[in-house]
Structures are given as structure tokens and as C-alpha cells.
């Protein structure tokens, strides 16, 4: 089998941690779309969920920072943050170590990866899981792209990572769901938290939906930093999903919610040949 589902979503910690501070109607609409993505994911009957995220110094730090890392643990614990602060209880999530090993071996044919047998999930993974698999029963394999501590892998390498993921998935018998989470423009955890560049986001989503590789790879980190903040570096995760899915995207939800510090995004992509 191969990929049976692909999508992208936001992961800002405020989505769950500051839920009560948001406008109720806006929050409900977003949550409905997010849960809807979880239902679509379940309907695809995956055996495992690969989540491409951009962690925030939960496991990796500037003393030894991998550009790309893939989890190879039998199980994962999260959130690493204070559960009360994040609004998500601490749980153990099953992994699939043998599949991780096979995927990593295959991906390494074209992309140099780090692997990790110990990995704690931060909000970058936990916020998506809390909506997509709220019983935390679907095995997860985390993939991380360093989007926090520059120098960062160039965008075309994020694309190559997605291609490697697809090739590895194609040679696996398992039914695999793939979700990317990050961005789009935002200035999280700064005094500017809440600032969102909506036109920039909509243009990025247009490029992503039409799977326009050249347009997606034409962003520069200087331009992204200026227009979309340091949170914009996380578009790497979204770009890798487009490379892996090779399909056309559909946006189920996009709306900036300032107290969540992000343009709240839920989108899926068809699996192309």
C-alpha cells in the first residue's frame, strides 16, 4: 500500500491552551473543521500516521541540531509542556519501530536523516493529535524539520524529504496517513503574537493547493522572515507534504484567530500518482 491520506493543519499551542480566550463562534467553526479532518483521516483506515512537524526545542537543541529527524521508538510521550498550560493531558502514544526502521532505511537513499529512539512530543504534534486522533490509539511516526534554529535546510531539501517519504511509503505494505503541521505566517511567542499576514498565507495556500513546486520553492528565508515572521519558516513541513502527496489541495478552513497566534488552517490533499 502507500499513502491513503494527506493533509496539513495548524499546531499553535494557543489553539488548545488558550481556547477559552477566543471568540466562541470562531473557535467552534475551526474546531469543527479540525475534527472533520480527523474523521476523513479515520475513513481512510490508516494503520499508522506519519506527522511531519517542526518542534520547538523539546528534543533537539543548538548543541546538536538535526536538519531532519525521524522517530524510531515503540512509543512516545507527550506533551512535554505543562499539560495544564497546553490544555492537553499527558499520554503515551504508540509508535511503530519496525516500520520506522524500514522508512528510514529507504529515505536515507536520498536524504541524510537523524533518527531518534527517544522523543517527547511538544505542542507541534500534540495539538494536531488532540483533534485528529483524540484517543491517541493510532500509531504515530514523527518526522521533524528544524525550523527553529537557523541555519535551516533549504526549501528544496524539504521537498526532497517529502519525495523520499513518498518513495518509502510506496514500498511499504502498510496503509499510511501523512499530516504536515506548521506555519503559515506567524510571530509566535514574541510580543507580536497574534500578528498574521493573511494575504501572504492565502497566496501560500494557493501555491500549495495547486502543488506548484516552483512557486513554493521560490520563497527565500529573508523574504519569509520579513513578510511571515520566524514562524513562517515552518512552511517547510507543508511543502514536504505537497512533495509526498503529489496531488491537489483543498482548504477546509483558514481564518486568523489572534489569540491562537496563527491563521488557523485545515487542508487536505489528494494522493497523486
Amino acid at each position: 500500500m502507500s499513502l491513503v491520506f494527506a493533509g496539513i493543519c495548524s499546531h499553535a499551542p494557543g489553539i488548545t491552551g488558550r481556547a477559552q480566550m477566543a471568540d466562541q463562534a470562531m473557535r467552534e467553526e475551526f474546531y469543527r473543521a479540525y475534527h472533520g479532518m480527523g474523521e476523513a483521516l479515520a475513513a481512510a483506515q490508516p494503520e499508522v500516521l506519519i506527522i511531519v512537524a517542526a518542534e520547538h526545542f523539546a528534543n533537539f537543541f543548538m548543541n546538536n541540531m538535526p536538519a531532519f529527524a525521524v522517530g524510531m521508538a515503540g512509543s512516545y510521550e507527550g506533551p512535554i509542556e505543562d499539560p495544564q498550560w497546553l490544555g492537553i493531558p499527558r499520554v503515551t502514544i504508540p509508535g511503530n519501530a519496525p516500520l520506522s526502521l524500514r522508512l528510514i532505511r529507504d529515505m536515507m537513499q536520498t536524504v541524510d536523516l537523524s533518527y531518534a529512539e527517544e522523543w517527547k512530543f511538544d505542542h507541534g504534534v500534540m495539538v494536531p493529535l488532540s483533534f485528529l486522533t483524540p484517543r491517541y490509539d493510532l500509531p504515530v511516526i514523527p518526522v521533524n524539520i528544524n525550523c527553529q534554529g537557523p541555519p535551516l535546510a533549504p526549501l528544496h531539501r524539504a521537498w526532497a524529504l517529502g519525495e523520499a517519504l513518498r518513495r518509502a511509503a510506496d514500498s511499504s505494505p502498510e496503509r499510511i496517513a501523512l499530516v504536515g503541521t506548521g506555519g503559515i505566517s506567524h510571530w509566535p511567542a514574541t510580543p507580536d503574537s497574534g500578528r498574521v499576514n493573511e494575504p501572504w498565507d492565502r497566496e501560500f495556500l494557493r501555491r500549495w493547493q495547486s502543488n506548484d513546486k516552483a512557486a513554493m520553492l521560490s520563497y527565500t528565508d529573508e523574504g519569509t522572515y520579513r513578510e511571515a515572521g520566524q514562524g513562517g519558516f515552518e512552511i517547510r513541513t507543508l511543502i514536504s507534504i505537497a512533495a509526498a502527496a503529489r496531488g491537489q489541495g483543498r482548504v477546509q478552513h483558514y481564518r486568523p484567530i489572534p489569540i491562537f497566534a496563527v491563521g488557523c488552517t485545515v487542508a487536505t490533499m489528494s494522493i497523486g500518482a
Partner: protein
Amino acid sequence: MQKFLFDINRDPELQRQCRADLPAILKRYELSGEERGALEAGDIGLIYVLGANGQLLMHYAAFLGMPWADYLGAMRSGVTRHGPVRAGVYSMTTRLDEKVADL
């Protein structure tokens, strides 16, 4: 300084030790006098200006019991008192009096 924040954010035992004797724990880290003073005083605004990545700093603010609105305000006041952020990619891009978080 960021190494200390990284360590304390992910280690409940270190959090407990810091509550008991923060200066003793900070002795283990290579810090400038300004960094040490800011950490000992819990001066989130100055720690921010000195270049702490927000993804590290927001958890330290929560550890100090600071609500979200106060955390954003503390960073803004840090920039008012000490000038622009001196290192890293988490600098402030809005005006000093701007409110962007709907708070």
C-alpha cells in the same frame, strides 16, 4: 542562557531545584553578568531582549506563573527599557504601543 531555558523546560526535577536555589543552579551555566542577573530576577523582558528564543522563553514565563497577557507585556516592556532584541530571530516587529493578540 538558552541552554538553561532548554534544560529547565524539559526537566521537572531541575524545575524543583530551581525553585529551591536558583543561583546555585545558574552557577553551572556559562552566563554573562547581565544574563545571570536577568535570570535571577525573573526579568522576562530583559531575557527576551538578550536574545532568548520565544519558544524557550514562553515556557519559562509559564514556570514563573506568568499569564499570557503579562508575558506579552513583559517582552514589550523589556524592549521599552532596554532597546531592541540583540540576537536571534524572535525580535519585535510591531510598534511599542501596538496590540496584536486581541488582549
